[in-house]
């Protein structure tokens, strides 16, 4: 009896214990840091829990439970078998799968798997070790739909980044750049007409990752500033563990990617004298006999030009071998309480253009400290100082590239070394030798932040960001520089921009019942930006040895001005995930800005998206071929507020007449002026085949921009030439395809490839004044055509009978293709567009044991470039400019069939703006190439180093194009960058550098 009772008791106890067995434990990462909010689920049941602030959990798995599944964003899932143990210490490993990558999305982050938006992610590996001084060039060709163009080969050149096509005509088209949550000042402050890229101050070595928000749903959280996409930059931070140090040194040389061939002295003399003889022979009245000979005597400095005594290749004067040296160093580490990162970098770039170069010193410190389980605070601070030796803008006579227009019979320098002064155009060497132009850019960017965690699922963040950009320019032109008649001129300017950003937001993230996950963010943000500018000009210096304003006897100009803008915003976002396979997200942002007209001060920008991971469904789970399939759709509205600070006001500004003050109207007013609104739909499919060995995405997007901000031309007879209006409707739609494949994945040899292709179609759908055309120079905005399409008469070639240039009349009706030799009679036609239809990138990475080769090709098709300099340089010797060698094919005798008209000096034969100089600029470029070798660990252990790598890196090594100009990417840097014209624009640099990366 007693024994049976005991048995029953034991059985009962056993049953009770077995049924209610409670387990507990901790979830940590491989370095021992606890993971907060990791999800634990008993496989096959709905029982689960979430870890607390210390990574601890308790769980009561039901009887017969076998396996515990632990998951956490950014880490590989881990399945732990359930044993008799009651305490479990579980360590998760960081995931290397693309789908588990952490993606930063504005006020938060998520994993790629759970993303319902279209975000392109680039890691430090993608962008590291590219020998360029600006970080934007590092991701060219690597993100679908993101087009990165370097305007020209000057080291400080503007970089044009376009996400999914040009979504605006006159308002800014740059994406919003956000560094660690602080929107960056991105205004070009150059005063000479050519832009200086303000983001040059950021060294690529500080960047951990770049996430580009491309669709409405992701960018809507940035509301009125998100219409052109958002580039989120995250800087490096420390990790728990012993201090890690890293040193990277590289040095390279640069040359121009391409040079164009010009006439030599003999060819030049032949062509110019023929042009003069023809003009005299035709009885045009100019030139007079002897005029050309006199001119050539002058330009050749009295040397024997008839026999090409002097034959200068001016291209040698313009270009030189450039170089790039880059050193950066960082220390990072941390423990449970504090993690830190300190880094410093130095970059010295000598440009490929004579007289152009920069050096940059930068430093960063990122520190984060956990005061206790609830409070974390940190400080990110970056400082950089860049000094740029600059040359003039492309339209200036003393820009080096315009030296190609000089006659080859002119010596560049006299025997005593002085630049020769009687050249056709002013000799830029005079400006180089006797003038200077230095721009200094100092930048301080920082963020102080704190996070208070009320509960594991609820936290509050406050971020205070500061961005100061301080640019000074010092320019001196000595008395011997061209056009200087005031015994020297000095110009100094200061431009200071300061942005303060204060964001406060609350995040709630909780998994309910192991199946439902809800993440809600809500907050406010206030931005205040001010800009102060002043400048002074002085003339009359005692000698060229005095170059600062203090020595100027007369101060002839000065300016000082102040401007500001503010944004006040509220935002909220909620995402709901069911069973890790159904996602719904909605966000809304309300922005008000001082930039908008008083009648339209505030705007609301909503967005929503949804996704479905089809491969989690039972019918597809564990399918051997299709390992991942996700469908997503997003839709939302964004704004573009890059419209200047006071575009809506009717303004008068101060002028002076004989030093008496007056006022003049400068801008017609428009109280209804407001931001441009962009509504975007995105449909996407993400797939993975063969256990994600092949993966990819296909996206279709349709983006409508309405209320385009336009400087609408007005009839000059009204007294003003343009007014700002929100008009019209522009549509961009396209497809992006991304394909990644691990082609070979064995031990010792891996090869993976990643390709992206995108096609963008843009079309203007409505314009004001009953869809009337807006024409500006050689570009037109017309309904049914692409933005800024080229609009000009069509060149038809040369009349074989007399050598006249011919144009197609292009009128309505049968005689459309009749030709005329009078360009005034030729109607203009739409002849091309400045933006490409197709862009593509291909990156391959091949690793064999310790050697790794990675290269990226980039291509663009469909864009055209109009060479504004063609009227001077490929003009069948219309004047004394040096000509391109193709002008030697000029018409000479009746019956000649050629595309180059007869050479006639000063007659303007064929030099009107026409398609003669409009050319397709399709190209494929080997953008980056990196070959690296890792020292074997046996060597490293002896020396006491961690990973050490030698590498060879190249930029723009190969270019395949039919374009006959300098560079199929280069555009003129003075004047509008969106009109697709080049004007003596410098080609990009081809750089090869060798470097070593040491970690210890």
């Amino acid at each position, binding site marked *: 009896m007693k024994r049976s009772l005991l048995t029953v008791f034991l059985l009962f106890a056993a049953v009770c214990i077995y049924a209610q067995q409670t387990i507990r434990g901790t979830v940590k990462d491989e370095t021992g840091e606890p993971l907060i909010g990791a999800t634990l689920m008993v496989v096959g049941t709905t029982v689960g829990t979430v870890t607390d602030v210390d990574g601890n959990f308790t769980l009561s798995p039901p009887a017969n439970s076998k396996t515990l599944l632990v998951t956490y964003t950014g880490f590989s899932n881990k399945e732990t078998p359930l044993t008799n143990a009651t305490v479990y210490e579980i360590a998760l490993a960081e995931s290397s799968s693309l789908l588990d990558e952490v993606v930063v999305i504005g006020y938060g982050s998520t994993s790629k798997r759970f993303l319902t938006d279209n975000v392109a992610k680039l890691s430090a590996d993608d962008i590291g070790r590219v020998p360029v001084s600006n970080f934007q060039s590092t991701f060219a060709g690597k993100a679908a739909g993101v087009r990165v163009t370097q305007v020209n080969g000057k080291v400080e050149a503007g970089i044009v980044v376009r996400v999914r096509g040009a979504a605006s005509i006159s308002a800014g088209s740059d994406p919003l750049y956000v560094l660690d949550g602080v929107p960056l000042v991105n205004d070009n402050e150059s005063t000479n007409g050519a832009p200086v890229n303000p983001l040059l101050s950021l060294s690529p070595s500080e960047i951990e990752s770049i996430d580009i928000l491309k669709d409405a749903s992701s960018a809507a959280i940035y509301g009125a500033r998100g219409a052109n996409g958002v580039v989120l930059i995250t800087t490096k931070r420390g990790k728990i563990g012993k201090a890690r140090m890293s040193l990277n040194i590289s040095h390279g040389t640069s040359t121009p990617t391409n040079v164009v061939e010009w006439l030599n002295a003999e060819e030049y003399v032949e062509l110019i004298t023929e042009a003069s003889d023809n003009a005299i022979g035709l009885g045009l009245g100019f030139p007079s006999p002897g005029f050309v000979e006199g001119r050539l005597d002058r330009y050749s400095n009295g040397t024997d030009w008839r026999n090409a005594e002097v034959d200068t290749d001016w291209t040698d004067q313009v270009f030189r071998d450039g170089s790039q040296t880059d050193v950066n160093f960082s220390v990072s580490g941390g423990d449970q309480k504090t993690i830190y990162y300190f880094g410093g970098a130095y970059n010295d770039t000598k440009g490929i253009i004579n007289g152009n170069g920069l050096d940059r010193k930068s430093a960063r410190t990122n520190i984060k400290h956990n005061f206790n389980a609830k409070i974390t605070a940190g400080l990110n601070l970056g400082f950089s100082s860049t000094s740029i030796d600059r040359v003039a803008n492309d339209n200036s006579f003393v820009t080096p590239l315009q030296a190609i227009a000089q006659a080859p019979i002119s010596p560049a320098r006299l025997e005593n070394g002085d630049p020769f002064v009687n050249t056709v155009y002013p000799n830029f060497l005079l400006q180089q030798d006797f003038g200077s132009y230095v721009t200094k850019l100092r930048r301080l960017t920082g963020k102080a932040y704190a996070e208070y965690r009320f509960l594991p699922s609820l936290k509050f963040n406050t971020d205070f960001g500061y961005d100061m950009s301080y640019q000074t320019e010092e320019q001196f032109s000595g008395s011997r520089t061209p056009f200087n008649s*005031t015994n020297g001129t000095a110009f100094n300017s200061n431009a200071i921009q300061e942005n303060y950003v204060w964001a406060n937001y*609350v995040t709630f993230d909780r998994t309910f019942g192991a199946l439902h996950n809800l993440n809600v963010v809500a907050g*406010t943000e*206030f931005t205040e930006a001010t800009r102060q500018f002043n400048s002074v000009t002085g003339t009359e210096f005692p000698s060229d040895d005095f170059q600062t304003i203090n020595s100027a006897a007369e101060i002839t100009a000065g300016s000082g001005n102040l401007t500001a803008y503010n944004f006040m915003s509220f935002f909220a976002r909620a995402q709901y995930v069911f069973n890790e396979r159904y996602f719904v997200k909605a966000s809304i942002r309300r922005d008000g800005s001082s930039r908008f007209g008083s009648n339209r001060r505030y705007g609301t920008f909503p967005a929503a998206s949804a996704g479905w991971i089809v491969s989690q469904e039972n019918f597809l789970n564990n399918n051997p071929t299709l390992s991942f399939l996700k469908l997503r759709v997003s839709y939302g509205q964004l704004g573009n507020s890059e419209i200047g600070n006071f575009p809506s006001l009717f303004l*008068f500004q101060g*002028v002076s007449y004989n030093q008496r003050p007056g*006022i003049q109207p400068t801008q017609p007013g*428009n109280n209804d002026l407001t931001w441009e609104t962009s509504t975007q739909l995105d449909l996407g499919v993400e797939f993975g085949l063969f256990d994600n060995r092949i993966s990819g995405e296909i996206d279709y997007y349709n983006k409508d921009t309405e209320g385009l901000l336009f400087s609408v031309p007005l009839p*000059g007879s*009204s007294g003003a030439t343009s007014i700002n209006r929100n008009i019209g409707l522009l549509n961009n739609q396209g497809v992006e395809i991304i394909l990644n494949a691990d082609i070979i994945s064995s031990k010792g040899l891996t090869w993976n490839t990643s390709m992206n292709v995108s096609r963008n179609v843009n079309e203007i759908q409505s314009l004001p004044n009953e869809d009337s055309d807006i024409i500006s120079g050689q570009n037109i905005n017309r309904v049914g055509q692409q933005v800024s399409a080229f609009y000009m008469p069509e060149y038809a070639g040369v009349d074989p009978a007399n050598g006249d240039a011919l144009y197609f009349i292009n009128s309505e009706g049968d005689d459309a293709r009749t030709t005329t030799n009078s360009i005034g009679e030729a109607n203009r036609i739409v002849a091309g567009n400045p933006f490409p239809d197709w862009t593509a990138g291909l990156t391959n990475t091949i690793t064999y044991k310790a050697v790794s080769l990675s290269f990226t090709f980039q291509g663009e098709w469909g864009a055209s470039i109009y060479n504004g300099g063609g009227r001077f340089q490929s003009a069948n010797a219309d004047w004394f400019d040096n000509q391109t060698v193709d002008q030697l094919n000029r018409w000479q005798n009746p019956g000649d069939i050629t595309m180059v008209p007869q050479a006639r000096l000063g007659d303007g034969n064929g030099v009107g703006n026409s398609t003669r100089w409009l050319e397709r600029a399709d190209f494929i470029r080997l953008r980056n190439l990196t070959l690296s070798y890792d020292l074997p660990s046996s060597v490293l252990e002896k020396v006491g180093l961690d990973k050490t790598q030698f590498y060879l890196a190249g930029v723009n090594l190969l270019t395949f194009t039919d374009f006959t100009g300098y560079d199929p990417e280069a555009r003129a840097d003075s004047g509008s960058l969106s009109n697709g014209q080049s004007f003596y624009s410098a080609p990009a640099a081809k750089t090869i550098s060798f470097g070593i990366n040491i970690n210890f």
Partner: protein
Amino acid sequence: MITKYNYLFFLSLAVLAFTSCDDKLNILPAQSIAGEVAFSTEANIQNILIGTYSEAGEDESYGGQLQIMADLLGKGDYVTWVGTFLDPRQVANKNMLTDNSFVGGYWNNAYATINQANLVLDNLDVVTSSSEERDRIEGEARFLRGLSYFDLARHFSSGDTGVPLRATGISDYSVDLSSGRASTTEIYDLVISDLQRAAAVLPGSNGIFADQYAAEALLARVYLHQGNYPAARDAADVVIMNSGAALTPTFAEAFNNDENSSEDIFAFQVTSQDGANDLIIHYADEGNGGRGGDIEINDSYASIFEGDDERGSFFVASRQTDARLTAKYTNQFGNIPLIRLAEMYLIRAEANLRESTSVGATPLADINTIRNRSGASSLDEVDVDGILLERVKELAFEGFLIHDIRRTGGSVDGFNADANELVFPIPLSEMDTNPLMSQNPGYN
């Protein structure tokens, strides 16, 4: 679980955010004032008037490009254009394209000046300090408006088809701005009525600004251009007799002055800090602030002079090219005379001769006054051709050449006075934005 504490925190945050910063979104520009403010005070109307002078003196018009275009059109063999700019070369060759930037720039600038003058005239009621002030401001605005319309008509009108007539200022650009071309007669009627009113209300002397005699002198020029010789003669006579201006002792002293000379009836002011002088840019060498001498004076011009005429040697050699340049433009910051007293003598002489009168002085006496000032010997008799030649000797490179040819039915470079090629094309930018505009014959 969201506790009550958390709710309160979030709520207070939201409240804080909503109330704090709405007024921070009202920022005014620091370097400009709003249009409404600009029309509200007398001081500002005076400011707009000064701004109108500054506008008219811009390089695209009276700051030099207008005079240069007039002289290149009428250049004949006198000068050669050797500069690199394509647009003035088109003017010199008389094959201007509709997108010629010198022509388009002048059109836009002239109408900007007209608009600003109109804004002053529309808001005269704000000027209440005295009737003299109001008259002075009105007179100056009408002078500038009349001047602008006169030159627009001279260059752009084709037969009796003139240019758009804008008689009131535009400050609201949201309305339809298209305008057709008024007749040339209507334009000239406005010019004459503006200048007559200006002559009636302006004071006899007004510092560097337009005065009664500037208006009379400009009227003389307008009447001469129209062929209304009696009126031209009488207006020129008023200026010569009553203005107090006197020819400078030597020819050279009439030019390159930092301050107005005794001979200046009206000049556009240029200083090292403001004002534009494009005549320097294209006529002077680099040492004097120019581009090296884009306009070279040929032997054909130098040879029209005889004897000791100072004007026949009033040249300077370019230090870059050794070519002959005019010495009228060597001071980079010198004022630009619009009307000199010398022109009045020439107008009076020509008008008297054509009318067979001798108001004020005989034509021969007036011509000799001009000649003697420059050291040329006196003539014994003079005819119309002689006076026209004297105008070329005295007024060359000041923007008169083409106008004298066209008003006298002459011809230049193989083109007759009524040739289409001697008239500017309506700028392409106006044709593209103004549907009521029509192009001049001979241009597309």
